[in-house]
């Protein structure tokens, strides 16, 4: 007989499972965490390599000459920007036209759901200007995009100057097989979203924009440039996009290949690569880089203008020029040559980038970990939930040993209804957490002396905390309250729900799934009505999603070598919440709905279980 169909063996297996459940769970948890930490260890990673045949081994000799002229153009741009008090649309249109591009503009406007205190904007109105360099001999079916955001104040002028300089240089070449679109967008991400929506005829976020009149065909790849100084010491690559989506690894490989060829210092997450992987300091450096990437991916915000392209299946990265205190400086001509080389390689593409990985983690710029290697870390954490669920199922199915008044124990099998009540109430609370903060901000501002942003954030926290009081109220509605059977059924459902939720999240955004699993899984595993209430309540609150976010904020600042005090951390935390809500309304990020509508109710179910009696 088979292992599982033989009742004796099955009973033995189940007995094993029941006895060793807690040790196996603890072991799996430690193994999962250790696996994740081990991913950054260099012998376990792979060197990056170019997977796309079309972007093959040979490289051209880049000949971009006009770095100084680009910087002069940047200074002109800055002067006109100050004069116009925003985007110097007319000057940009004239300059692009004089360089031989087909120039178009798009105006957009958006009223944010509540004022954005980080960037100090509420009613945003702006114009995007873009020029299309038509391919001399090719049909207008494919395009590449080079974009530089127009930021208010003194930022990013050199990027726009370099963009215009490259436009002029590219115009004189005849080997372009795709149209190149040079885009200068205003109000960074909002303008970019407007342009992308207009280009693809989709209106997902409710923004107002004028239609795009000039198109270049389907966009194959995009590069976003941020350059705020005349000379730079290093170039930083930003990969993380909206909802934690990453561009194809080939684009990062391309960037790294050119960094090596031209000899520019290149970093990722602002950290320079080290050679001593076998020392503790080297290993911790890689771990820090990887964890920074994981946290950025988990936050679900686009960390550069490129982040919004990814949703349209356009591979895009942001290249930031950093000027720090290093001796060797790179001038604008070299940066221009690097971009020229990258564009010539992208010009050779025949189809969209798809040969390399879409899901990966990078502990350094030259090494990566693919999904096949990092998923077991999450799998080990998920197994804990399944083991617990199996244990509970076994407890539910096998009848308890007959006691003297065994009848009383088995009195009412609660059935689906009693489980349904906590579920429904938790989800209603989640829906309240999703809807109330933004909807009732006006009312909150009337009654309390706070600004709109603070009102939203504080309402969110208030609803979250109010949910903690639920168990005492729902028990009145509950029919099967207090039964042993009841909480087991609820916990089984909650465990499976959590497992499915975390699994689906980890597939799409591994870092978010893993970080949530790190805190939610131990809580889900040990919580029962029988553990000491006060201690468990405190532990549960610490392991709740909101506190995870709080700790992540502090941890993130630590990783970036910019530790903050508790006060600053708290303000940062509030701004992170407001940014998360704004991201959802402005760009369609799903992190806020996910947390409010799914993760928080799931956590509330466990809170309910804790206070079952």
């Amino acid at each position, binding site marked *: 007989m088979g292992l599982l169909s033989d009742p004796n063996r099955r009973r033995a297996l189940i007995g094993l499972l029941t006895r060793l459940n807690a040790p196996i769970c603890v072991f799996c948890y430690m193994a999962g965490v250790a696996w994740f930490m081990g991913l950054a260890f260099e012998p376990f990673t792979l060197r990056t390599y170019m997977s796309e045949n079309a972007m093959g081994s040979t*490289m051209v000799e880049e000949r971009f000459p006009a770095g100084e002229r680009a910087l002069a153009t940047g200074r002109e741009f800055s002067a006109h920007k100050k004069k116009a008090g925003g985007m110097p649309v007319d000057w940009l249109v004239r300059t692009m036209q004089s360089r031989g591009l087909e120039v178009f503009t798009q105006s957009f406007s958006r009223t944010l759901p509540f004022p954005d205190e980080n960037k100090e904007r509420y009613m945003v109105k702006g114009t995007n200007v873009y020029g299309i360099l038509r*391919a001399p001999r090719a049909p207008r079916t494919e395009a590449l995009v080079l974009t530089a955001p127009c930021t208010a104040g003194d930022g990013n002028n050199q990027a726009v100057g370099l963009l215009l300089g490259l436009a002029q240089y590219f115009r004189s070449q005849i080997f372009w097989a795709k149209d190149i679109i040079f885009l200068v967008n205003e109000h960074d991400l909002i303008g970019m979203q407007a342009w992308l929506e207009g280009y693809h005829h989709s209106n997902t976020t409710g923004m107002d924009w004028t239609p795009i009149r000039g198109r270049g065909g389907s966009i194959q790849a995009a590069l976003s440039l941020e350059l705020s100084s005349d000379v730079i010491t290093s170039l930083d690559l930003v990969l993380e996009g909206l909802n934690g989506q990453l561009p194809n690894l080939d684009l990062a490989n391309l960037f790294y290949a050119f960094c090596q060829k031209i000899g520019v210092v290149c970093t990722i997450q602002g950290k320079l690569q080290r050679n001593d992987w076998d020392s503790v300091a080297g290993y911790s450096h890689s771990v820090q880089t990887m964890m920074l990437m994981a946290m950025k991916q988990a936050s679900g915000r686009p960390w550069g203008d490129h982040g919004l392209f990814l949703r349209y299946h356009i591979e895009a990265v942001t290249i930031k020029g950093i000027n720090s205190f290093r001796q060797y400086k790179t001038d604008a001509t070299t940066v221009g040559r690097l971009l020229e080389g990258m564009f010539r390689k992208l010009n050779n593409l025949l189809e969209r980038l798809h040969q390399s990985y879409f899901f990966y983690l990078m502990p350094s710029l030259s090494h990566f970990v693919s999904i096949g290697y990092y998923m077991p870390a999450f799998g080990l954490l998920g197994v804990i939930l399944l083991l617990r669920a199996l244990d509970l199922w076994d407890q539910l199915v096998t009848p308890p040993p007959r006691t003297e008044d065994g009848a009383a124990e088995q009195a009412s099998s609660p059935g689906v209804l009693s489980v349904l009540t906590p579920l429904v109430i938790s989800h209603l609370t989640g829906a309240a957490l999703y809807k109330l903060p933004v909807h009732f901000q006006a009312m909150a501002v009337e009654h309390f002396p706070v600004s709109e942003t603070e009102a939203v954030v504080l309402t969110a926290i208030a609803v979250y905390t109010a949910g903690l009081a639920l168990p005492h109220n729902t028990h009145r509605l509950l029919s099967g309250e207090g039964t042993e059977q009841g909480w087991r059924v609820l916990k089984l459902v909650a465990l499976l729900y959590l497992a499915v939720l975390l699994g689906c999240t980890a597939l799409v955004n591994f870092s978010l799934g893993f970080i949530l699993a790190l805190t939610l899984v131990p809580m889900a595993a040990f919580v029962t009505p029988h553990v000491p209430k006060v201690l468990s309540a405190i532990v549960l609150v610490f392991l709740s999603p909101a506190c995870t976010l709080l700790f992540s904020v502090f941890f993130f600042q630590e990783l970036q070598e910019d530790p903050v005090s508790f006060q600053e951390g708290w303000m940062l935390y509030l701004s992170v919440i407001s940014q998360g809500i704004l991201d959802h309304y402005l760009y369609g990020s799903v992190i806020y709905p996910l947390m409010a509508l799914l993760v928080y109710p799931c956590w509330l179910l466990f809170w309910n279980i804790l206070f079952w009696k």
Partner: protein
Amino acid sequence: MKLLILLNLFSIYLLANSINVENTAGQFFSSGHTNNWAVLVCTSRFWFNYRHVANTLSVYRSVKRLGIPDSHIVLMLADDMACNHRNPKPATVFSHKNMELNVYGDDVEVDYRGYEVTVENFLRVLTGRLPLSTPRSKRLLSDDRSNILIYLTGHGGNGFLKFQDSEEISNVELADAFEQMWQKRRYNELLFIIDTCQGASMYERFYSPNIMALASSQIGEDSLSHQPDLAIGVHLMDRYTFYLLEFLEDIHPASKTNMNDLFKVCPKSQCVSTPGHRTDLFLRDPGSVLITDFFGSVRKVEITMETINLTIPIKQLEQNPLTELQRYSYVDQLPVSEIIHQNPKQKDWHPPDGFILGLWTLILLVFFKTYGMKHLKHIF
């Protein structure tokens, strides 16, 4: 007196010449072929396979220079590199870096271009099974006195050659095609050159006589590309064909270089891979085969003012090994008579299906059971 001596000398000179001409007339028919053909195929497309087109065009150039006219060359190029949008020098295909040698020129005649280069078309060209509407430029109109040069380049593997990213030709198919050519008397001798990875696997299945084969690498080895051009941004040529081209640039129509020198082209030190060759199916000794027997169309023309007496049997330099003539008849390719036969073919009679028999028996039994035997007389 002086005039007499002069006349004598003159007649002696003419006599010597005429004897010379009659002697060399014997050499006219030594190699056995009267015309030359070339089939040059590049099987890969896309910009980064620039070097395969450059390979084929450089062999085309050499072959044309040595005398084979366009009407006798079937050139198949799978993609257009000269007019590719990414070519910084349009209408050119360079084989040496720094753009020294443009093998595209202005008199290139491509017979099969783009998507027409398929395995089916290639095999049809070789075997001659083309639709009646195919123009002459797309046909290999060779006969049994033709020496054919076949050059293939592209991406290949152990036992196959990739055509255009979508199909492959296997070494067995190729060997069978050559056998069909032999049986239809479409070639006198065949030189097969292939420049791909693991090229030697393509010729290991040949079994038809009079084929000599060269490949750029052995099984398990990759053929490497030669040099990139930093302005164009691609590799321009493959190593084997690059050194083959250099070798051929030294050949002129009258040169007497033989095949043994061709086998020495691109040794391992230059090519990194080991070129291979196969001569066991070839009847002549490779040392006596001239390069121009395949790469050029050398017309054996000697201008003489003499009349040559051809009634004397001319001594042939080589004995014809075939002593008895075999009559060959073609197998009936299309049994038309059987297809349009008016009378249906006699099928063997077989008893009716058991099932039908049983069914009728059942019906009868039921009938008689129900109505009784007395009704039998009403039926019969």
